[in-house]
């Protein structure tokens, strides 16, 4: 089964911490973009022989693209690919730019999951992040989605944002839990080069690294107490509501990504489109990046999940046992509490997730 990712590079305005490819656009840009996406979808269909069981509209802010255009894209996928009836179709939304109508329209076109960026329920934190929508707007957006019949709702929060404290974090978590949603992504803020935050880094009043770690562990603990499972480094879900599309990335499964900066993994090869809107509109093709799906890559990705690296799965996939040295090294780490190693596999703990780069590096290098 294959996933399809559609990148919508439009935002109402750019948030100061974000380095994803997006900009604020005119209606005519959106129209020409729709045309280009539809053309690409038709042209690339031959690459996808499998059934398609997930579609993900990410961005940018896909809701800015408008329900009609989103519907058209889904229709095009239905016409050109074998979309399974139970496919998970996600649209990322900005809570401040969605209406009840929007939810109804996308629901009608087949969308069954929305993911909304709240980032923080605390006003001064939201302002520092340049987020427009307040708590009330988020609550309203969630109720719109539910009314429209979309109950698979995800909200994002950020950890380690300017002036955040453990207390203010609890306020955000309380709000998440009370929203009765199915999925939560909790990302630690990373200051990316080239963003306004990067330039202002010294004056941002960021919590220190130890505090951010405590925030992460605290968030995980509280969400787990409320019935969420911490299934990936930054993702939490009620049972059965894990993001099927995102799991494809971690399971080393294939996906087609359309739009500037979108990545694809098809036929064992990784591709990407350059971060250039005009080039995409002009029809510039995706660029070959590297071969994918190696043992190393598989392990690296599997260890981002709480289910971890399963030896049985590994053997099924690669037709051989996992390298003995990896198991040996994992056993050495066990007493640190950063991971668990059993006969079935290796999995990182929440503390281990915090150090996942180092641990994964130690295990495979």
């Amino acid at each position, binding site marked *: 089964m294959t996933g399809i990712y559609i990148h919508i590079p439009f935002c109402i305005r750019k948030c100061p911490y974000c380095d994803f490819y997006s900009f604020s656009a005119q209606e005519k840009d959106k129209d020409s973009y729709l045309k280009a996406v539809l053309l690409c979808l038709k042209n690339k269909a031959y690459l996808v022989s499998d059934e398609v069981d997930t579609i993900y509209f990410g961005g940018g802010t896909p809701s800015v693209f408008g329900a009609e255009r989103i519907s058209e894209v889904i229709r095009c996928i239905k016409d050109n690919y074998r979309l399974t009836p139970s496919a998970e179709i996600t649209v990322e939304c900005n809570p401040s730019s969605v209406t009840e109508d929007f939810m109804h329209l996308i629901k009608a076109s087949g969308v069954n999951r929305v993911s909304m960026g709240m980032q923080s329920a605390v006003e001064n934190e939201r302002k520092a992040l340049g987020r427009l929508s307040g708590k009330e707007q988020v609550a309203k957006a969630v109720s719109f989605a539910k009314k429209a019949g979309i109950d698979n709702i995800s909200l994002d929060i950020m950890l380690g944002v300017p002036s955040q404290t453990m207390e203010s974090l609890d306020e955000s978590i309380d709000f998440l839990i009370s929203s009765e949603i199915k999925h939560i992504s909790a990302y630690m803020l990373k200051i990316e080069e080239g963003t306004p935050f990067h330039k202002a880094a010294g004056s941002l009043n960021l919590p220190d690294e130890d505090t951010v*770690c405590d925030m992460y562990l605290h968030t995980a603990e509280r969400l787990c107490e409320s019935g969420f499972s911490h299934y990936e480094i930054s993702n939490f879900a009620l049972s059965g509501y894990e993001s099927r599309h995102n799991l494809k990335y971690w399971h080393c499964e294939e996906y087609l*990504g359309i739009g500037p900066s979108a*990545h694809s*993994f098809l036929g064992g090869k990784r591709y990407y489109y350059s971060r250039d809107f005009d080039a995409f509109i002009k029809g510039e093709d995706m660029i070959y990046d*590297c071969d994918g799906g190696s043992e190393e890559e598989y392990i690296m990705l599997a260890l981002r999940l709480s289910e971890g690296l399963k030896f049985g799965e590994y053997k099924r996939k690669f037709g051989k046992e996992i390298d003995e040295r990896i198991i040996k090294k994992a056993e050495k780490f066990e007493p640190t509490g950063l991971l668990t190693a059993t006969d079935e596999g290796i999995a990182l703990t929440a503390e281990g997730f*915090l150090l*996942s*780069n180092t641990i994964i*590096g130690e295990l495979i290098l």
Partner: protein
Amino acid sequence: MAKKKENIRNFSIIAHIDHGKSTLADRLLEITDSVAKRDMSAQILDDMDLERERGITIKAHAVKLDYKAKDGETYELNLIDTPGHVDFNYEVSRSLAACEGAILIIDASQGIEAQTLANTYLALDHDLELVPVINKIDLPAAEPDRVAAEVEEIIGLDCSMAPRVSAKTGENVAEVLERIVADIPAPSEAEDNAPLKALIFDSVYDNYKGVIVYVRVMQGTLKAGETMKMMATGAEFNVVEVGYMRATGLEPCKELSAGEVGYITASIKTVRDAKVGDTVTKLQNPASEPLPGYRKVNPMVYCGVYPADGADYEALRESLEKLQLNDASLSYEPETSGALGFGFRCGFLGLLHLEIIQERLEREYNLDLVTTVPSVVYKIHMNDGSVVEIDNPTHYPDPAHIDFCEEPITNAHIYAPADYVGAIMDLCQDRRGTFKDMKYITTDRVDIHYEMPLNEIIYDFFDALKSRTRGYASFDYEISEYRRSSLQKVDVLLNGDIIDALSFIIHSEKAQSRARKIAEKLKMHIPRQMFEIPIQVAIGSKVIARETVKAMRKDVLAKCYGGDITRKKKLLEKQKEGKKRMRQFGSVEVPQEAFMAVLKLDDDN
């Protein structure tokens, strides 16, 4: 036909670093048409990249120039360029011994500096006729009159005829040649018919010809086909070729005769067979006595040199071998370190020599190196009366068996503007210096003389001196003697394990403060790892300083957006690269920078 010895002039150029020695040499080549202008790359005599970059001459060079003087005669000028640093004093002295005169360059704005004086004294020791030249008159800050007065007053050289030049622009440089012809004596008394005595002032290895030996023939003659003999080593060789060094290459000739400067090739395989300072004679009719002044050069500073990647051990060995072909003063022998694996203990003339070799290994041979803290040679007197010389802290004997220790002491001279006397004295005092005296060279410049242990100098003394005097001080030292001293071996422990490569020997009074600084530096340079790392600095089992590297808590790529797996993979590649630069000690990883950092401990840096 006998050549006219009256028309030969053999001379050196001496100067403080950066006073324009190489630039002047270039101009002389240009004026005498020794090199076509279009072939002039800046500073042709300094042909190693490193020499050009650092503005210093590392190897001596020589070149023969033909000059038609105003008197209508054509003169054969042999310019012997000398290394400009205290580490190479012996080489300088041999080059000077090959000359009858020297040009003394003084910077028109800076005046007399440490090496101006040191080299002047060396030249006077060899009875050389000095021709003062005041350079850099093109600089806005130039004060040629003041500097001329300074030279007359301090060195006692008449500067009334001293050419005032700009080697950079070429202004007045021709005058220098006239002064050479007029003031520097010809080797008129050099006797062709006496037994051969030729002084080796340098030798270089050439892939095709083998070692090229640079000599000054003091008496006698030599031609191809004859058998020559090195008087110090006793080695004999059949002369393949003799000739002159021209700016553009070697120029073979029939015979080298008394008074001349030239080269010899004789299928010599290593420069160790043609040692600087040795005397070349002939097997037939040999000289009874060698020329005076030869001595075996002993390394003063030692350190361990290890490949960053153990797989490069062979490459390192081969590179050292190649460097030694051209550098008889470099010594090396295999050594093993528990921490660093297989490497070499290398001996150097001084710190600059050490740095140069290290840089050449890294640059010319593309090696990634880890070097240990440099050490001097200590003499350890044991209870049983025996004396052990050690240049590696790892070999320091059990203190219970030591009667007493001796360390090398230097006579150090620091030349600086008088404003900095306080700062310099503080520094020297801090480095266990004993004040000897202070002379005012001029009303605002001083020569401060200290006795200082060599092991206080080899760490980072020069850097510290420069930073305390804003670069205005210059410095010169020579070893005077070994002296009894209270020494201790200090070990560094990471996570409880001794890191042998970080051990050092130090005066007991300095142990505590150095220990504290090392612990702090290591803490700064060892990245947080998955567990807490105690850093301890200890004498025997007594810990005298400690720090802790806290455990790392966060190293995560929280978001891999839109299936951008490549970013994660690149991160992993970077980790791999980073690991290569790390040394594994037990469970602790130490980056190479940490080793370098403990070499530079001065507070002001």
